[in-house]
Every structure is written in structure tokens, then in C-alpha cells.
């Protein structure tokens, strides 16, 4: 009896506190936007999953964003705001959508003018929506799921390419490479991680590969983290596909490639990744050159013709870090934001959103066409195809800035 009494009062307590919290939240919503003294710094949230399963990518992303902030500040801050400095507000999404949401709330309370980051699709889907409640401009650094920009969120912008463009380019390039070599490959196996990013991509590939004359033998999902790919590799061994397409994050990608190497399983034509978590990572190539050899990837890549990109690469490597895509994607996203704030001449969130929507920013380091946002998506964004050859990563397509010819199909061992 006394037990049930206790429980009742506890529930009552919860109800009361929930009501209080709701009241507080609506209070925040109704409150006028925070006033800032003239000439004060512009606060920008840098939100990355710097701990948890995606921590390596998160830390790389934070590095890129921080370099951009430092460079802007060193060059005299934001001109349109009287040389105001950018004050980064760092957040850790802890590799989960919930963790990301909590940080957006904190950043909003801290009075940031905009947020850059998110990294994983699943995190970005959540954080952009939370930010939208506060009309908080949000630039997605990587998250490729198209749903991020198709939900009609006015605050959300993505500078990089989404699934649609990526899958289309990846497929067109695969067909081009295969045709040029006399069509040695006909069958495909897809290994993907099972959250928004991998599953979405697998679905797209499954829909589009057959039309291009490829047969998808099997599609294998796996969770993140996974620490055993023996079963997956056994399936590859049994099905003998000409091409294996992995779509997963860094740790799992490395483990899959190393397990394939360990079990001496090699597809006839290629390991062709679409957004392979490690396939075009200098870290992977340096640490496991044998497992990485000849892996192809259609992924984010910097513009090797752009001196600014090469200078950034040098700078990152001088710090003992690898020049991975998280670095230059975040770097470019922060520059894009700074340009918008500069033109908005204000930290007013609506004005920044308007400035982003009309952006034609060209000062980034990516091999993109002219910047033009349609419903928050940069129409100029495009990926590149790379291949690990020797101890380096070479661009094999587009031909405009390719540094090597593709090694395809795989040479015999």
C-alpha cells in the first residue's frame, strides 16, 4: 500500500516537473532574440560527434571547422560586422541523434547565430529539426541523406552533395569505368551499415544498378559498431560477386577490408565504394596499405587544382593530422557561413538564412560548380572518384582533374 502511494506521488511529481519544463520551453520560444552588444564576437556552434562510435570523423570535422574560424579571425574577422571575431561554441553529439539535439539546445541558449556540423545523416536529421524550432541557421557539413533538405526546413543548408547526386555520379562513373575496360563486371554485392546513411544508399543502388546491366546478388546490412565481419566475408566468398560495394563508416570499413584481406577474398573486378568510410582516407592508406590497395571510392574530395586546398592540406598534415574529407567539408562550410554573415551584416538569424539562401560563395576548396541553393541544397555540389594506387590516393574521375588512370579490373595477385 505504501508502495503504491509512493509511486503515485512520484508520478505526480513527474507530471508537475514536465509541466514546469514545458512552460519554461515555451517561455524561451516567446522570448525576443538575445540582444548582443555592437562589435561583440559572433558565436557559431560547431557540432560534431567527437566521442562515441564516430569520434574520429567528429574530431576531424572539428579540426577543419576550427582552422577556418582561426583563419577568418586572423584575417580581421567578419568585415560586414565591423571586423567582429567568430567565437566558436564547441559541441559533442556523442555519435547519437539525442546527443546532437541536446547540444543544439545548449548552443541556442548560448546565443549562437548559426550551427555548422552534424556529420552523420541520422544526427543531422534530428539536429536540423531542433534548430528549425529556433529559426537557427544550420549548415550540414556531411550528412548525405536527401531527407535532410527535402523536409522544407528553411534554416537548413547543405553545401556538399546528397545521396541522389552521389548515387547518380557513382553509378555513371562505375558504368564508364566498366565499359571502358570491356565490361568485365556484371554482378554486385552491397555491404552497408544499417542506419539512415547506409540503408538509404543501398536502397538507391538496388533501384538503379539493374537498369545499368548489373545484377545485385545480395545486400547485407550490419550495425555500427560491428566488430566481426567473418560472416559477411563468407557470404562474399560464396557468392563470388565481380564488384563489392561497401557503404559504412570508418571503423567498419577498415575491418571489412582487413577481414577480406585476411580471408583472402577478393572480387574479380573491384571494391567500389560509394561514400566508403575509409576508402579515400589517408589514414587508412597509411595504416593498412595492403588492405587498401586498388580500392575505388566515389566520395567527397577536395579540388587538387585549388591552391587554397593544397595549402590547407599542408597545414593539416603539418599538425600531424590526416587530410580527410571531414576536414575540408567543415572548413568550406564555415567559410560559407562567414560569407553569409558578412553579407547579412547582422547576426539576426533570419537575415543570415536569407543570405545563405542567396549565396554564390566561391571561396571554398571543393571541386564544385557555382554555388546555388535550391531548397537548402547546393546544386553545384559534386563528388569525385578516387582509387588507392601505391601508397597514395589518386583521382580517377572526373577527367578534368584526374591524376591517374583507373586500375580496373583488379590485377591478378
Amino acid at each position, binding site marked *: 500500500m505504501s508502495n503504491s502511494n509512493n509511486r503515485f506521488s512520484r508520478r505526480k511529481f513527474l507530471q508537475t516537473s514536465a509541466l514546469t519544463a514545458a512552460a519554461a520551453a515555451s517561455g524561451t520560444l516567446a522570448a525576443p532574440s538575445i540582444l548582443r552588444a555592437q562589435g561583440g564576437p559572433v558565436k557559431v556552434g560547431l557540432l560534431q560527434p567527437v566521442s*562515441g562510435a564516430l569520434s574520429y570523423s567528429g574530431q576531424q570535422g572539428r579540426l577543419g571547422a576550427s582552422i577556418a574560424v582561426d583563419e577568418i579571425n586572423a584575417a580581421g574577422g567578419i568585415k560586414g560586422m565591423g571586423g567582429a571575431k567568430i567565437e566558436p561554441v564547441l559541441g559533442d553529439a556523442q555519435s547519437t541523434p539525442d546527443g546532437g539535439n541536446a547540444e543544439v539546445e545548449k548552443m541556442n541558449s548560448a546565443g549562437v547565430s548559426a550551427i555548422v556540423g552534424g556529420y552523420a545523416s541520422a544526427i543531422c536529421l534530428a539536429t536540423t529539426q531542433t534548430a528549425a524550432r529556433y529559426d537557427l541557421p544550420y549548415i550540414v557539413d556531411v550528412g548525405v541523406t536527401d531527407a535532410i533538405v527535402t523536409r522544407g526546413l528553411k534554416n537548413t543548408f547543405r553545401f556538399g552533395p546528397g545521396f541522389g547526386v552521389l548515387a547518380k555520379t557513382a553509378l555513371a562513373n562505375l558504368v564508364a569505368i566498366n565499359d571502358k575496360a570491356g565490361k568485365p563486371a556484371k554482378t554486385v554485392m552491397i555491404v552497408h551499415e544499417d542506419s539512415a546513411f547506409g540503408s538509404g544508399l543501398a536502397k538507391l543502388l538496388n533501384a538503379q544498378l539493374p537498369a545499368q546491366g548489373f545484377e545485385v546478388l545480395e545486400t547485407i546490412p*550490419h*550495425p555500427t*559498431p560491428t566488430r566481426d565481419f*567473418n*560472416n559477411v566475408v*563468407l*557470404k562474399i566468398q560464396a557468392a563470388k560477386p565481380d564488384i563489392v560495394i561497401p557503404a559504412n563508416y570508418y571503423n567498419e570499413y577498415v575491418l571489412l577490408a582487413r577481414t577480406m584481406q*585476411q580471408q*583472402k577474398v577478393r572480387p574479380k573486378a573491384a571494391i567500389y565504394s560509394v561514400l566508403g568510410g575509409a576508402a579515400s582516407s589517408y589514414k587508412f592508406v597509411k595504416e593498412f596499405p595492403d588492405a587498401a590497395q586498388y580500392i575505388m571510392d566515389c566520395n567527397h574530395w577536395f579540388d587538387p587544382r585549388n591552391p587554397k586546398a593544397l595549402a590547407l592540406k599542408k597545414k593539416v598534415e603539418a599538425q600531424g593530422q590526416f587530410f580527410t574529407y571531414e576536414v575540408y567539408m567543415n572548413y568550406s562550410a564555415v567559410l560559407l557561413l562567414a560569407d553569409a554573415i558578412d553579407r547579412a551584416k547582422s547576426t539576426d538569424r533570419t537575415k543570415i538564412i536569407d543570405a545563405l539562401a542567396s549565396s554564390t560563395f566561391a571561396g571554398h576548396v571543393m571541386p564544385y560548380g557555382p554555388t546555388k541553393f535550391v531548397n537548402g541544397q547546393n546544386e553545384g555540389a559534386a563528388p569525385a572518384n578516387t582509387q588507392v594506387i601505391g601508397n597514395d590516393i589518386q583521382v580517377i574521375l572526373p577527367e578534368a582533374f584526374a591524376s591517374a588512370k583507373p586500375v580496373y579490373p583488379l590485377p591478378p595477385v
Partner: protein
Amino acid sequence: MHISILFPAIINGLLMGAIYALIALGLTLVYGVLHIINFAHGTLLTAALFAAFFLHKLFGIDPYLAVFILVPAFFVLGYGLQRFVIGPASHGNDANILLVTLGLAVVIENLLLYAFRADTRTIDVKYAFDVVSFAGMFLSVPRLAGFAGAVVVALLLWLLLTRTDTGKAIRAVAKEKLGAQLSGIDVAHIYAVTFGLGAACVAIAACLLIPTYYVNPNVGNAFVLIAFTTVVLGGMGSIPGALMGGLFVGVVESLSGLYLGESLGQIGIFVMFILVLLLRPSGLLGERA
């Protein structure tokens, strides 16, 4: 699905199952003697994995050598936990013990989370991807070492229980606590020794796991669920049962992973768990419930 991959999948399952068995051994021992369900078992595993990780990272100690440091350390830790925390806090009431171990689990897990954050960490040893060729398969060396380790530990535990005075005392306490006390056995001491042995098993499992696995503050939870399944399957308190149960669970997991996909692999284990509870609640080798 090609039949040729069935056999390697079963072998992979057996190798992983040996580690499950090792973790279940500690749990079944504690249950068999103390008649308590130790919810802190999984977090002790997490703690041991962190210990093995940092011994390697900070001092370069190979995980297999770390066994000789961690086993005594975790024996002492387990002994102390039972003697000075769980035992006194329970006031002789089994329901209390359950809550105390659950509380310990929450405390340890959150301390680890506070100290090391949610990061997933792995170590990279040179032999992590070494293989031996066997009947056309390439078997992972660290997995084979894990298998051998588990079998040896099970054998040692069995010898300890059946051939030594301590073992006799443990069995006596398990059978009849009051009678054992009347014949001069220090029951509190034996309880603590048993708990220490359980913790030591977990330490060995951690050292055998870390070369091919990862550690984060929640990693133990996945294993403790499997360990409970294993213990129930093999029969509560039975050492050969835990070994067989572990191997069986490993194979079921591997095969269901193969046929249902990696994301659904663990469903097979829990379906089996429910079936055992329905059809043979005493487990494969358990005495009648």
C-alpha cells in the same frame, strides 16, 4: 545460400562462443554458490576490458600477458566487493543482493562513462589479423587463442571445484550453508572467494577479447545478456553446462547472423532463450529446477 560457408560459419560461432562461455562461467559459479544473480557481471567485464586496454596503451603490455596482472587484481576486487559491499549490504536477504549488484552495475558503468566518455576504443596488436590455414579455412589466431583459453579455464575451474579443499568448501556452502558453517567453514570467506573467482573469469575473458574487440562503457551489457542466456541454457550453476551453452549460443548467433543478417543476428539467441525457458527450464545440464 551456399552450403560451403556453413561449416566456416559454425567454426566462427564456436570460436566466439568460447568467449561467451568464459563470461558465463563466472556468472554460473556465483549463481551456483551464492544463489545470487550478479547484475554487475557485465560492468566488471567492461572494467576489465578498460584495464586491458590501458595496460596495452600506456605500458605496452600485451593483452595475453596482462592476464597475469588482471586475474589477481580482479580476484581481489571481486573478493572485496562481496566481502565489504554486497555481503554487508544484503543483510542476508536475496532480493537485496539483486538490487545491490544492480546498483553496483549502474555506479561502475557511469564512473567509466564519466572517466572515459562514450568513445569506442580498440587496440591494434600485430597478430590481430594473423590466420592459420585449416581445412581450406583461414582461422583467426586471436580467436583460436580465446577458444583455447576458455577451455583451459573451464577445466581449471572444474578441477578446483572437484579436487581441492577450497572447491569442496565452495560446494558445501552451495549445498547447505548452515551445515557448512557448523562444520567450521568460514561462509563469508567462501562467498567472497567465489565472487573473486567469478571476477577473475571476466578478467581472463577481457584479455582474450580485446585483441579483436572494442571497449566502450556500455560494451558489457551486450555480453551479460548473452551470458544469462548461456547460463540458463546450460543449467544454472553447471560448469560444463556453461561451456556447452556458450559454444551453442555462439553457433546460433553466427548462423542466425548468416541467414537473417548481421543486424538481426542476436534475435536467434533470444528466441532460443525463450524456447529453453518454455521447454526445459532447468537447462541442458542443470539439476532439476
